[in-house]
């Protein structure tokens, strides 16, 4: 259909077409020029808005599409105004929809919203509020249609006006301005280009403001912005409203807020601006994986400190998460004996976020550069802020925040050695001398790290929620283990029953648990408790996924099974480098323990195939097998080579060579008291060497002189006697001591092939019968259940209860065993974690 011959009946659809073409298209169209009086009459008479199409006195005019649209807008605005007068909400609603429709179509480009639109909308809002109040007051109901329209409008306007809040605010300030621009004038003006329109508008504003002489800054859009403490709240509101919108320039916002901060005078203003500024800075970086700019982080830290200082000096104000959201943009009136004025906000989340960003930056900076070290230096200040926050919360009895912040503090401390903690604490005292006023951590002149950690943990045990308690417990155990208090750590671990349900907790806590277990294991190792150390480390080192379990780097997967999101999450969980536990040292300790346990056990198994299947440490066995299969093995180069060489030497009874190889491992230097550890290991090697020797060669001797054995392994005679006695008592060695001649009499005879087979046959028969019994038992119980179900439900229930009772009893027994048998429990959770990972994968 040719545009020229468009019927006047559907001007609206026409509008659509034209505007959707979105160009400056000239069009000839029939259009009425509204005559206000007539329209008003029509409205008043008809109530329901009718289209202007039925007007007869049309006039042909040539206009740009934009002009036309503005015209249409004006008409709608006028109609709304008219409808307001007679309180006709149905009309208003219709017209309002139309208005917006036109507007949205038109404003795809970058043109500003016409001022009169804003005016209309603002007035409409006022009117709406007014009539809502009226409606409430008067008992008389509106007619149903009208009332419904009113409610719809209420929502629509609320939604709509949020978009134009800034403009409305502006209009409200001086509604007179531009009012001379009557619609007709605009129409006339709009002969020129619309871009000009904007400019002229802006220019006018510009001139006016300039004339007033308050000019300060000019924004990108040529709009002057002035910041004074008077209009601070307004500006603040503008910024707040723009927050999170698509096209908001975040940097600009931050700048505005910083300027606002400069002009803020009263503490209330400062607090309000800071409460907006700090999150704005956190928001600046939208992506999860990137870290916050270091400079910005520092300025945020400064601002948080400033906020803290304001709050400390003005106890009248308190930031509270559950406070009423205040709408008033003015200074609150504070009476002297009033409770503190609550401002809505979450201060503890700032500290949390700041800390998180710090960690994130450390995760992303290459740990081997000076950047990392420089960044790490900021930790002291961050820590000071945390301490300061803690004291503030404590003073104001914000228990939840306090425990969160105490947790943060603890997490900064628990893995550090004493000296570092002392330095940090001392520098905190310098930065912030009030730090000693805390009741949780009473001050003492000497910083005792153990006491500090203890008091922090105790606070969390008492006040914290369950997650915090768990984490505090783990940190506490970690700290004890770090300080070689194995028994204390072990008892805490067992008494807290952490391991029963650790695999149900979040991954972060599981990582902490794994770290703790490893640390406990290393602690046992340092104390020479080889067996305990091995069982602590077994489940983490035995998996071959140490890195992943400790969150110290991503494991390279041969068959990439992880989806990218999974990997992303993993990456986020990584620990910063300075918290890492040295993996090589860990492996070294684990393998050494495994060697000391596995080699004698292998020797004891001898040629017995059944016993040979009993494996203490799988990775160790695997490595040893691999090592033995090699045709040539050169001199040991890395830690593993050393241990493998040592293991072979130990198996052959060359304990001295074993000692040499173990002592040659360089990584021991990372442990404190290296010499003590080496001495301990040497002694263990001698003892295990003796045991291995006895296991391996006992069948070849009738008697062995105790003195000679002592000589061979350079052990004192009575410890040789004690070792052998123990072996005899535990029935590991078929022998007895001859006190008179001072030698060991060996009774062991290697069983012949037939005898061996007979033994294993007997064993198998026994297990066969056992299996049969078990099957029958199973069948019986299930059969019984079935029968019971057939008979009576009540009876079967009883039966069920009985079995249940039995099972719960069984569980209880299990728990008891768990308490007493340390070695069984360890590492339960780790398996849980791996399973969980598998599910996720």
């Amino acid at each position, binding site marked *: 259909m040719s545009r020229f011959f468009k019927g006047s009946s559907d001007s609206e659809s026409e509008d659509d077409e034209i505007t959707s073409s979105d160009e400056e298209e000239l069009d000839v169209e029939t259009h009425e020029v509204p005559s206000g009086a007539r329209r008003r009459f029509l409205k008043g008479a008809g109530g329901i808005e009718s289209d202007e199409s039925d007007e007869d006195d049309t006039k042909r005019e040539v206009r740009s599409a934009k002009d036309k649209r503005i015209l249409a807008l004006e008409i709608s605005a006028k109609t709304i105004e008219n409808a307001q007068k007679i309180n006709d909400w149905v009309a208003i609603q219709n017209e309002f929809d139309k208005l917006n429709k036109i507007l949205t179509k038109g404003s795809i480009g970058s043109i500003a919203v016409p001022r009169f639109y804003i005016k209309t909308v603002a007035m409409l809002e006022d009117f709406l509020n007014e009539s809502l109040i009226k409606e409430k007051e008067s008992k008389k109901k509106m007619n149903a249609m009208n009332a419904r329209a009113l409610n719809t409008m209420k929502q629509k306007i609320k939604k709509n006006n949020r978009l134009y809040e800034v403009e409305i605010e502006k209009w409200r300030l001086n509604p007179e301005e531009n009012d001379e621009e009557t619609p007709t004038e605009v129409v006339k003006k709009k002969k020129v280009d619309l871009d000009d329109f904007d400019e002229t508008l802006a220019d006018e504003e510009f001139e006016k403001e300039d004339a007033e002489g308050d000019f300060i800054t000019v924004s990108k859009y040529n709009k002057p912005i002035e910041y004074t403490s008077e209009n601070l709240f307004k500006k603040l509101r503008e910024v707040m409203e723009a927050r999170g919108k698509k096209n908001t320039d975040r940097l600009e916002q931050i700048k505005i807020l910083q300027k606002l901060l400069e002009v803020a005078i009263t503490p209330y203003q400062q607090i309000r601006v800071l409460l907006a500024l700090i999150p704005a800075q956190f928001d600046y970086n939208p992506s999860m994986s990137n870290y916050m700019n270091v400079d910005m982080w520092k300025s945020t830290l400064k601002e948080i400190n400033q906020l803290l200082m304001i709050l400390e000096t003005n106890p009248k104000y308190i930031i509270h998460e559950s406070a009423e959201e205040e709408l008033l943009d003015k200074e609150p009136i504070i009476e002297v004996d009033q409770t503190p004025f609550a401002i809505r906000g979450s201060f503890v989340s700032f500290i949390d976020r700041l800390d998180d960003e710090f960690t994130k930056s450390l995760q992303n900076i290459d740990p081997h550069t000076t950047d990392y070290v420089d960044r790490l230096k900021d930790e002291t200040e961050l820590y000071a802020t945390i301490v300061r926050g803690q004291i503030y919360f404590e003073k104001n009895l914000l228990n939840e925040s306090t425990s969160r912040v105490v947790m943060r503090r603890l997490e900064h401390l628990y893995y550090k050695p004493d000296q570092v903690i002392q330095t940090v604490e001392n520098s905190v005292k310098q930065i912030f001398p009030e730090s000693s006023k805390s009741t949780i951590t009473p001050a003492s002149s000497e910083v005792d790290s153990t006491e500090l950690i203890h008091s922090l943990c105790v606070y969390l045990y008492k006040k914290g929620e369950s997650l915090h308690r768990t984490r505090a417990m783990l940190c506490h155990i970690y700290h004890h283990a770090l300080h070689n208090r194995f*028994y204390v750590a072990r008892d805490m671990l067992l008494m807290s029953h952490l391991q029963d349900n650790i695999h149900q907790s979040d991954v972060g806590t599981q990582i902490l648990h794994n770290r703790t277990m490893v640390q406990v294991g290393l602690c046992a190792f340092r104390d020479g408790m080889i067996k305990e150390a091995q069982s602590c480390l077994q489940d983490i080192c035995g998996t071959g996924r140490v890195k992943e379990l400790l969150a110290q780097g991503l494991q390279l997967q041969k068959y990439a099974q992880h989806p990218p999101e999974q990997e992303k999450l993993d990456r986020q969980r990584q620990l910063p480098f300075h918290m890492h536990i040295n993996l090589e040292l860990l492996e070294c300790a684990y393998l050494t323990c495994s060697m000391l346990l596995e080699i004698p056990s292998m020797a004891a198994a001898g040629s017995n195939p059944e016993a040979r299947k009993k494996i203490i440490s799988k990775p160790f066995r695997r490595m040893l097998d691999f090592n033995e299969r090699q045709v040539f093995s050169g001199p040991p180069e890395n830690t593993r080579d050393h241990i493998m060489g040592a293991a072979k030497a130990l198996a052959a009874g060359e304990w001295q060579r074993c000692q040499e190889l173990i002592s040659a491992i360089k990584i021991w230097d990372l442990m404190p008291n290296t010499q003590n550890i080496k001495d301990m290991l040497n002694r263990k090697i001698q003892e295990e060497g003796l045991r291995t020797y006895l296991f391996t060669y006992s069948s070849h001797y009738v008697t062995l002189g105790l003195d000679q054995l002592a000589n061979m392994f350079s052990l004192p005679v009575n410890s040789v*006697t004690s070792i052998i006695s123990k072996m005899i008592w535990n029935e590991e060695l078929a022998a*007895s001591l001859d006190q008179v001649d001072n030698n060991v009499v060996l009774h062991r005879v290697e069983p012949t092939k037939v005898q061996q087979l007979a033994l294993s046959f*007997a*064993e198998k028969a026994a297990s066969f019968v056992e299996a*049969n019994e078990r099957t029958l038992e199973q069948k019986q119980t299930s059969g019984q259940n079935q029968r019971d179900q057939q008979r009576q439900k009540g009876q079967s229930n009883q039966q069920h209860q009985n079995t249940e009772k039995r099972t719960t009893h069984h569980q209880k027994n299990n728990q008891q065993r768990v*308490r007493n048998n340390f070695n069984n429990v360890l590492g339960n959770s780790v398996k849980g974690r791996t399973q969980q990972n598998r599910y996720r994968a």
Partner: protein
Amino acid sequence: MANYDLIPRMIPYLDRHLVLPLLNFLSSNKIYPDHDLFKAKYELLAKTNMVDFISELYIEIHGDKEVPSEVLQGLETLQTEAQKVMDIITNPEVIAALRQDKLQNLHFLKEKYGFGQFQYNCGIYGGASDMLYHFRVLSTDHDLNLSALWGKLASDILDCNWDATLEEVQKLKETIDQKRTWFIHWSIFVFFNHPKGRDSIIDVFLSPFYVNTIQTSCPWILRYLTTAVVTNKRRKNNLKDLIKIIQQESYEYKDPITEFIESLYVKFDFEGAQHKLKECEEVLSNDFFLVATKMEFIENARYLISETYCRIHLKIDISGLSQTLNLGQEEGEKWIVNLIRDTRVDAKIDFKENTVIMNQNHTSIYQQVIERTKGLSFRSQVLASTIEKREAHQLTNAIESVTE
């Protein structure tokens, strides 16, 4: 010797009255200075109603003859008070009248409880015990009943009525699930005084809950447990559990008695065990509860040593063994002969060389196979018969259902 004395550690878990015999024991043993002990006793009793005793003590501490008037006054008021209550309770008419009215009955019971407590405080334990017994029979109030039970236990202990106490202990054990530490301490009085007590102490203390309590809050109880296990010949199979616990707790608590077990069964250091045994003697004679068991303990400890020794050794020099057992040459020989006879250790004495030769009964592989397969046929038979029974049962069931 004072560092092995456990009484200071135990006092927090005991009643004032129960502490008194302990302090008396201490003063007879002269570990602590007399004056301190008297003071402690005075403080202990100041809050009880044993006025005679208090005034006596006061004189002893301060040396002068004048007893402070308030003490005497206290005595008088107490006597009048007691008289009043006595009058009510012993008046048969009142009782007869009260029986009619339930509410009054309740009141009467309360009175009874109060009077029992009062008697106890005055040191009339027998009366208190009776009173509380009657109260418990009649009363339904759970809390009061429980405290009455504690009270009765204490009175019976102090009255040396051991049969009754053993009963009380069993009752109490069934009712409580908290305050186990207290219970453990109180029950020691009973266990080491009643002839059957040492069986029950092993049963009770080695049950999982009590092991936990001992390990966490009062590891010193291990001494009593160890003594009980060592002196009880029939309970040798509990030794393994005990060794495990001792080993676990060795970093937290050790005394010569636990160390003796440790050096014998963990370190296999016979010389060390011998030294510890000597120390044990001294510790035991200074322990209120264990004095009576001292000889028995040493006797049994020797058995343990020689048993272990024999199991490990093939040829033993008699003089060496006697030395290990703290015995002279001749005594040692006698001891060993007795040992061979009693425990039927398969051994012979070579008089010429002055040695004991153990006969090794080394199980041959033939025997091992027999051992392993011994039960198999029986077990299979049981299996078969159960299957048969089951089938028969099913058959009858089927017939039943058909006839129905």
